């Protein structure tokens, strides 16, 4: 995966495919001429964006900050819960049961409740983002904290390491790769959560932009918001992946193929 995206050739390929799709879309709209309310051409979407870039970027920023706040909170809370789950049977039973029950509820159905509790500001949106994102963080972190070589723990115990040292020196670094798997899922879920929040009660953000444009049957503006959402989600995902590469150069998935001097 990494190789596909890291090389400039890979990037050129991706951009090429994207441009081809846009060109095809433009041509199709020209040829088939569907009503603009059904499908506007890419050129129209671009014009709409350029006419009011401040409006779109301001609302993108709002959604982005909500997403990042929700994501950061999910990571902090999720890792904390995972540590508690791994360290205590009781915590495992309580937290896991609650988490699984919560996760099986459709979060959209919970959104109005959060609005009642927290008002129409940014707080309920962050809360919904956390609700959506935290599950994968907890599940993957628990997995990572648990899949430790028993001999590594034995080594620590023979050397009289405290449980805290074992957590910091062995369990946590060992869990990082799987925490990143969880984070890559969570970052997209946090964005979905932010949009859901804006749909339910919003006066800003890309979700709000979509609702307003829909009310005015302005399909082109809906598309501007969708494209911005796509770009936002993609960039966020690759930022997480870049951080992963930076922090985990030692992990199997990141290693170069060659093994210098191994004999």
């Amino acid at each position: 995966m990494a190789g596909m995206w890291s090389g400039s050739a890979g990037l050129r390929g991706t951009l090429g495919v994207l441009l081809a799709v846009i060109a095809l879309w433009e041509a199709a709209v020209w040829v088939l001429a569907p009503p603009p309310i059904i499908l506007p051409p890419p050129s129209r979407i671009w014009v709409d964006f350029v006419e009011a870039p401040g409006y779109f970027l301001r609302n993108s920023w709002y959604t982005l900050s909500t997403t990042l706040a929700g994501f950061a909170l999910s990571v902090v809370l999720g890792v904390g819960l995972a540590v508690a789950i791994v360290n205590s049977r009781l915590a495992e039973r309580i937290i896991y049961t609650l988490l699984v029950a919560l996760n099986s509820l459709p979060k959209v159905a919970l959104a109005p409740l959060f609005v009642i509790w927290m008002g129409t500001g940014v707080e309920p949106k962050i809360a919904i983002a956390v609700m959506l994102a935290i599950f994968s963080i907890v599940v993957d972190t628990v997995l990572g904290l648990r899949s430790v070589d028993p001999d590594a723990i034995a080594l620590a115990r023979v050397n009289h390491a405290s449980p805290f040292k074992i957590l910091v020196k062995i369990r946590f670094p060992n869990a990082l790769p799987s925490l990143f798997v969880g984070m890559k899922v969570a970052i997209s879920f946090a964005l979905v959560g932010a949009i859901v929040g804006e749909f339910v009660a919003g006066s800003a953000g890309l979700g709000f932009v979509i609702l307003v444009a829909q009310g005015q049957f302005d399909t082109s503006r809906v598309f501007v918001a969708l494209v911005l959402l796509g770009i936002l989600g993609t960039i966020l995902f690759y930022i997480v992946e870049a951080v992963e590469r930076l922090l985990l150069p030692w992990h199997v998935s990141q290693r170069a193929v060659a093994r210098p001097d191994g004999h």
Partner: protein
Amino acid sequence: MAACVEIRAAGKTYGSARGPVIALSDVSMDVAEGEFFSLLGPSGCGKSTLLKCISGLEGISTGGIRVRGQALSGPPKGLGMVFQRDVLLDWRTILQNVLITAEFQGRPTAEVIDRARALLERFGLGAFQDRHPWELSGGMRQRASICRALLCEPEILLMDEPFGALDAMTRDDLNVELTRIWQAARRTVIFVTHSIAEAVYLSDRVAMMSAGPGRIVEIVAIDLPRPRPLSIRETPEFARHVAHIRGLFAALGIVKE
């Protein structure tokens, strides 16, 4: 010689889904201070379990184990442990991996770091201390894990089939290095192996173990002179020891004649 490890009528029983399993039965032995002592036997004879019990990582069900006069409750002080797999942590360099035993107990001092470097140098890993484990061969990795065990200058070194996963040539190398280190430091070593030749080459005494239930059937003294070059394995005395042990195992029906 003072006894470093005393084991009296030790037994261990596991509960399992199909009823209790007797892993160790009535094990009694003494390991002297500074002795190189091997536990030899086929797989399933409980030799690794016995080592885990001596390390304090696992408790025994009956009998008693004393290390330097102290009854065991958890891992005793001054213990070094080497496992069959090297258990090096991928995110740490070789030097950092060696230092971890010190880090478990506090912040490594400059002196400890120097000692780690010196150990790596002595095991031929000086040039590799800033590499990561996956960049090294199996033999080099196991060398690093021995350095890790030796860093805190343990009084007792427990080794659980440390060379079992290595090729024969690397194994020979490490056998020689281990005897050399042991000769210089004279710490107590308890070494688990299923190779008769390895046990004879390394040990002062060999405890022969048998399965079902795991027990010691015989303790054999190896009176070969030290230092022992690898070539000692071609001498008639060495062959006599190996034949003696093999014969005993065969008489017990543990190996085929």
